[in-house]
C-alpha cells in the first residue's frame, strides 16, 4: 500500500467508531484484508456496511416476505423491482426514504429524495411515468414544523415538476411522534418494454467503466452513515451531509441514459446514490462477481483537491456509472455530450474480484469486493415487546358522540382527515398525459398508452395501528392498499415498501420491526402480492424518542380495461349506495378516539385477510362488469368520513338510513376493516347485492345519492349536514392549520 496513507488519518477503533463501524466489524475488515485498512478503505467499508446500504439489522426478517409471483420479473436486490403488466410492457418501481436529510434541510432533502428514486427507475432502462410521496409530519405547532412542511412540499414539486414526472398521489399524516423526525418516502414507477431491462451487474473483463453526469463535489459525504444514526442536538451541524439537487441535470441524464441504452453498448448501469461512487461500483462488481480498477485521477471534480476518501464517499447528485462494451466508449460518450453532460472513462472491469483504486500513481485501496458487498455483517438483534404493551392494548373507553354531526365536522376539520389539496396542487400531476385519476382519490390511475389497460397506484400505512400492534398494523397496510386498488378495479401485481422505524439496537424497536414485517408477510401471502423492492430506514428517533413504527406500503395494480372505472365520489343523483362489509364496532387506534378524545389505546381493528380477499375480488368484478359508478374504501374515520368524502367530489348530497345496518353513535366512526362504499344505478342494485352474496361479502343498501346535504338516520336520530359547509371545513383544514 502506498505512501498516501501518510496523508490520511491513522485507522484506530475510535476512528472506525466515528464512522459507524463497531470494533467487531473493524476486526472483520482486518481479517478480510489480512492487514489494517487504510483510511479510504475504512470509509468505503463503513458506507457499505452501514445500516442504510447493508440492511444488516433487517435482512433476517426481510427474508420472510414473499418476493415471487406470476408477474414478477425482478424482485428485491436490483435498483428497483420489475413486474409484467402485459402488452409487452413491464412496470419498474421502488420506494425509498429520505427522512434524515429532509429533517435537516427540507427542500433539498425532499428534492434529492425524488431525484434518487427517479434514477433508480431509469437506471433499469425504464422511463419514469409517475411518483407518489408518503409524508409524515409532526403536529403543525411543533418547532420548525411549518418550515419543514413547506420545504418538503416545495422540494418534491421543485424537483419532480422540472424533470416532468407527474406526482399522482401519496398520503400525508400528522402525529406528535414525528415532531423530531419527519418521514419523506418517495416512490417512482417507470415503464419499459419487457425485453429492454437493464441491470447493475458488471461483467466482461476489459470493459471500460464510464462516469456520466454532474461532477463530484464535497456534498453528501457520509450521507449513508448519517442516515444510520439517530438525531441529537448536533444534527444541525450535519447540514453539509445533505446533497443539493439539480433537476435539470437529472432530466438530461434521464434522456441521455435512455438514449444510450437503446444503442446496445451498455453492459451494466447504476446510479450513484447513497455512498456514491463506492456503492455504485462495488455493488455492480459484487453482483456481477467481477473486479475493477478505478483511476481516481479521472473522476470529474467540481473543485480540485478532493482526496480519494472524499471522492469515494461524496453523494453529489445526478451521477451515473456505466459499464460499456469495449470499443464502444466513444459512441456512448457522444450521446451524453449531445445532452450537454460530461463523461469520463474512470476504470475497467477485471476478473480479479478485487477493487483496486489508483490515485496519483499509487494504490489507495485494494480490497476483495464480494466479501464486502455480499457478505456484509448480519445481525439478529434482541427483540422484546414493550413492557406496557398490555396497557396500550387494553380496550379503551369509547365516549359516545353527543352530536354525531358535530363529531364529523370536527374530524373533517383536522389536517389529518382534511383535504390535502394545498399540497398536491403544488405538484404537476398531469404532465405526460397518462393521469386518468390524480391525487385525492383512493388510488391514482394511469393509462398504459396504446392499450385499453391502466395501472393503479396507492400508498398506505396507519402508524397508530402499528404502534398499538405492529403485526396487525403491518397486515393492515397491505390489506388497505389492496382494497384501494380494488376500488379502481385493479388486481395487485406487486408492492414496494419503506420500513421506517427507530433504533434497531433497542429490543422494543427490533420487536416492532419483526412483528410488522411478519404482519406484512402474512397479508402479502394471503392476498397474493409479492414484495419486489423496498427500503429500510432505521434510527428514526430524536434524543431517545422513537417514531411510531411506519411500514409504508406502495402497491401497483393492473386494470384490464379503463372502460368501467368508477370514481371515488358520488357522480349522479338517484344512484343507490351500498355498504360492503360488516361493522364490528372497532375503535382501537381510531381517528375518532385519537383526534377527538386524545385516546390512543386498544387493539387496532382486526385484519381478516379472507374477508379482504373476498371484498377485493368482489370490487374487481363489479368494476369489470361496469356495474358501479362509485367505489370508495372505508378507512380513518369510518363510514361517516367515507360518506362525506364521497359527497365532496361533485358536491352531491346523500340520504342514508343506517337503522337496518344497526350503525349508530361512535360506531359511525368505527374503523372495522374490509369495508367499502359503492354506488350504482337503481336498476343495478339487485345485481350488485347478488354478486356480493355470491362473493361472500355482507352488503346492504343504505341510501341514495341526491340533495344538497349528507342526511343520516341512525340510532333513532336524524341529522343532516349541508355538503357545501362540510366541504369548506374539509378543504380549508390544512391551510387553516398552517396559518395561510
Amino acid at each position: 500500500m502506498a505512501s498516501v496513507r501518510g496523508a490520511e488519518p491513522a485507522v484506530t477503533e475510535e476512528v472506525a467508531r466515528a464512522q459507524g463501524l463497531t470494533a467487531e466489524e473493524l476486526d472483520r475488515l482486518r481479517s478480510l484484508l489480512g492487514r489494517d485498512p487504510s483510511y479510504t478503505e475504512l470509509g468505503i467499508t463503513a458506507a457499505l456496511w452501514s445500516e442504510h446500504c447493508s440492511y444488516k439489522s433487517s435482512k433476517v426478517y426481510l427474508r420472510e416476505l414473499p418476493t415471487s409471483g406470476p408477474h414478477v420479473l425482478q424482485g428485491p436486490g436490483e435498483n428497483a423491482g420489475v413486474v409484467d403488466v402485459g402488452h409487452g410492457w413491464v412496470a419498474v418501481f421502488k420506494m425509498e426514504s429520505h427522512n434524515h436529510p429532509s429533517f435537516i434541510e427540507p427542500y433539498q432533502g425532499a428534492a434529492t429524495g425524488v431525484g434518487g428514486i427517479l434514477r433508480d427507475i431509469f437506471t433499469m432502462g425504464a422511463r419514469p411515468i409517475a411518483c407518489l410521496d408518503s409524508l409524515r409530519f409532526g403536529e403543525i405547532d411543533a418547532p420548525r414544523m411549518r418550515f419543514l412542511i413547506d420545504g418538503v412540499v416545495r422540494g418534491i414539486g421543485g424537483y419532480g415538476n422540472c424533470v416532468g414526472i407527474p406526482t399522482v398521489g401519496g398520503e400525508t399524516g400528522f402525529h406528535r411522534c414525528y415532531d423530531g423526525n419527519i418521514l419523506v418516502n418517495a416512490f417512482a414507477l417507470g415503464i419499459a418494454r419487457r425485453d429492454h431491462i437493464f441491470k447493475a451487474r458488471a461483467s466482461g473483463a476489459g470493459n471500460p467503466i464510464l462516469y456520466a453526469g454532474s461532477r463530484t463535489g464535497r456534498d453528501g459525504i457520509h450521507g449513508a452513515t448519517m442516515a444510520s444514526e439517530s438525531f441529537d442536538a448536533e444534527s444541525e451541524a450535519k447540514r453539509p451531509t445533505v446533497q443539493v439537487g439539480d433537476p435539470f441535470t437529472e432530466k438530461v441524464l434521464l434522456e441521455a441514459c435512455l438514449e444510450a441504452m437503446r444503442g446496445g453498448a451498455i453492459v451494466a448501469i447504476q446510479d450513484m446514490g447513497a455512498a456514491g461512487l463506492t456503492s455504485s461500483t462495488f455493488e455492480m462488481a459484487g453482483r456481477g462477481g467481477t473486479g475493477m480498477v478505478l483511476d481516481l485521477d479521472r473522476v470529474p471534480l467540481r473543485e480540485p483537491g478532493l482526496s480519494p476518501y472524499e471522492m469515494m464517499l461524496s453523494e453529489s447528485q445526478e451521477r451515473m456509472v456505466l459499464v460499456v462494451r469495449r470499443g464502444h466508449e466513444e459512441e456512448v460518450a457522444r450521446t451524453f455530450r449531445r445532452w450537454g453532460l460530461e463523461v469520463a472513462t474512470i476504470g475497467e472491469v477485471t476478473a480479479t474480484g478485487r477493487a483496486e483504486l489508483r490515485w496519483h500513481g499509487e494504490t489507495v485501496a485494494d480490497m476483495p469486493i464480494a466479501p464486502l458487498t455480499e457478505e456484509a455483517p448480519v445481525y439478529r438483534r434482541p427483540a422484546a415487546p414493550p413492557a406496557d404493551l398490555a396497557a396500550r392494548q387494553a380496550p379503551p373507553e369509547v365516549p359516545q358522540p353527543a352530536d354525531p354531526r358535530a363529531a364529523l365536522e370536527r374530524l373533517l376539520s383536522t389536517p389529518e382527515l382534511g383535504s390535502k389539496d394545498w399540497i398536491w396542487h403544488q405538484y404537476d400531476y398531469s404532465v405526460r398525459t397518462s393521469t386518468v385519476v390524480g391525487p385525492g382519490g383512493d388510488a391514482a390511475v394511469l393509462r398504459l398508452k396504446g392499450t385499453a389497460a391502466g395501472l393503479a397506484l396507492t400508498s398506505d400505512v396507519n402508524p397508530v395501528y402499528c404502534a398499538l400492534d405492529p403485526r396487525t398494523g403491518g397486515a393492515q397496510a397491505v390489506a388497505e392498499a389492496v382494497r384501494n386498488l380494488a376500488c379502481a378495479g385493479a388486481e395487485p401485481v406487486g408492492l414496494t415498501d419503506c420500513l421506517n422505524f427507530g433504533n434497531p439496537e433497542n429490543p422494543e424497536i427490533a420487536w416492532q420491526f419483526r412483528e410488522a414485517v411478519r404482519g406484512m408477510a402474512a397479508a402479502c401471502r394471503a392476498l397474493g402480492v409479492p414484495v419486489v423492492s423496498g427500503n429500510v430506514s432505521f434510527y428514526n428517533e430524536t434524543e431517545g424518542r422513537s417514531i411510531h413504527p411506519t411500514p409504508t406500503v406502495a402497491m401497483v395494480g393492473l386494470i384490464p380495461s379503463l372502460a368501467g372505472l368508477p370514481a371515488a365520489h358520488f357522480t349522479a343523483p338517484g344512484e343507490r349506495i351500498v355498504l360492503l362489509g360488516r361493522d364490528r364496532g372497532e375503535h382501537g387506534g381510531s381517528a375518532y378516539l385519537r383526534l377527538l378524545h386524545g385516546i390512543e389505546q386498544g387493539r387496532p381493528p382486526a385484519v381478516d385477510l379472507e374477508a379482504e380477499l373476498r371484498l377485493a375480488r368482489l370490487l374487481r368484478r363489479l368494476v369489470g362488469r361496469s356495474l358501479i359508478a362509485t367505489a370508495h374504501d372505508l378507512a380513518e374515520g369510518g363510514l361517516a368520513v367515507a360518506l362525506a368524502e364521497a359527497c365532496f367530489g361533485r358536491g352531491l348530497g346523500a340520504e342514508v338510513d343506517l337503522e337496518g345496518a344497526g350503525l349508530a353513535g361512535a360506531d359511525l366512526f368505527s374503523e372495522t376493516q374490509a369495508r367499502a362504499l359503492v354506488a350504482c344505478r337503481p336498476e343495478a342494485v339487485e345485481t350488485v347485492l347478488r354478486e356480493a352474496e355470491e362473493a361472500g361479502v355482507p352488503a346492504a343498501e343504505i341510501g341514495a345519492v341526491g340533495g344538497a346535504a349528507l342526511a343520516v338516520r341512525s340510532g333513532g336520530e336524524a341529522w343532516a349536514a349541508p355538503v357545501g359547509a362540510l366541504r369548506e371545513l374539509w378543504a380549508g383544514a390544512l391551510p387553516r392549520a398552517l396559518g395561510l
Partner: protein
Amino acid sequence: MKCGVVVFPGSNCDHDVYHVWKHVLQQEATFLWHQDETLKDCDLVVLPGGFAYGDYLRAGALAALSPVMAAVKRHAAAGGLVLGICNGFQVLLEAGLLPGAMRRNASLRFECRDVWLRVERDDLPFTRGLRAGQLLRMPIAHAEGNYEDSPERLDALEAARLVAFRYTSPAGELDPAWNFNGAARAIAGICNPPGNVLGLMPHPERCAEEVLGNIDGLAILAAAAESLRSRPPLPPPREAAAPARLPATTAAAAALPAGR
C-alpha cells in the same frame, strides 16, 4: 400537415404534444432539436412546456437565445404558425415574438389545477371552430404564469384585440379567485397582430383525449391542423442574410443581455 415540436434539453411536454398531433389528430409530427438551425419544412412549430434549460434564470430567458429560435423567428415572420404552450409561451415572450413578461405566480407557488378559459378570439388559426365567449376547461401547471406589462402596453394589447384567452370563473365571469397565477387582466393567452403566433399558459395537449376525462384542448390543436389544410402553402423561408450564430453553450448564452 407537419408539426415540429421543439426539444430543449429540459422540455418535458414535448412527447405529449407530439402524441396528440401524431396519434390523436393523425398528422405528421417530428421533433426539432434546440441546436437545429432549420425547421425541417414544418408547417406548425410548437414550443412545448417544461424547463427549457432548467430555468434557473428567468423562465425561457436562455431558450430565447438558442439556435432553433432564430429559425422560429424567421418562420413566424414569414407567416408560419407558432404555438407556445406554458414554458413555450414564456420563451415566446423572452424572444420578443409576443409582448409582455411573466412574473412568479401571485401565490409564489407552483400551481397545478384545472382552470376555466374564456375564448376571446375565435378568428385565429388556432381558434377557428370555437366561439368567442365559449368556456374551455384546461389544466395549468406552472410557477411563472403571472402575465404582466405596463398599463399602456396592456391597453394597446387590448385595443389590438391580441388577448386570445382569459381566466374566468366556471360561469365565465372575471374573478380573482379563478385567476390562479394573478395574471394582469386575467390574461391566459395572447397572439401577435397577424394571429399566426399564439402563446398560452394552459396545456391543451393534456386534455385532448376522452380517456383523460376532458377534450376541451383538442379544439386548439385541431384548429391549427384545419387552418394549415385549408390555406395556401407558405413561400420558402427567407434565409437571413447572415444568420446570427449564437453561442452553443448555455453558460455563454447566460452572459448575453435578454434582448428586450
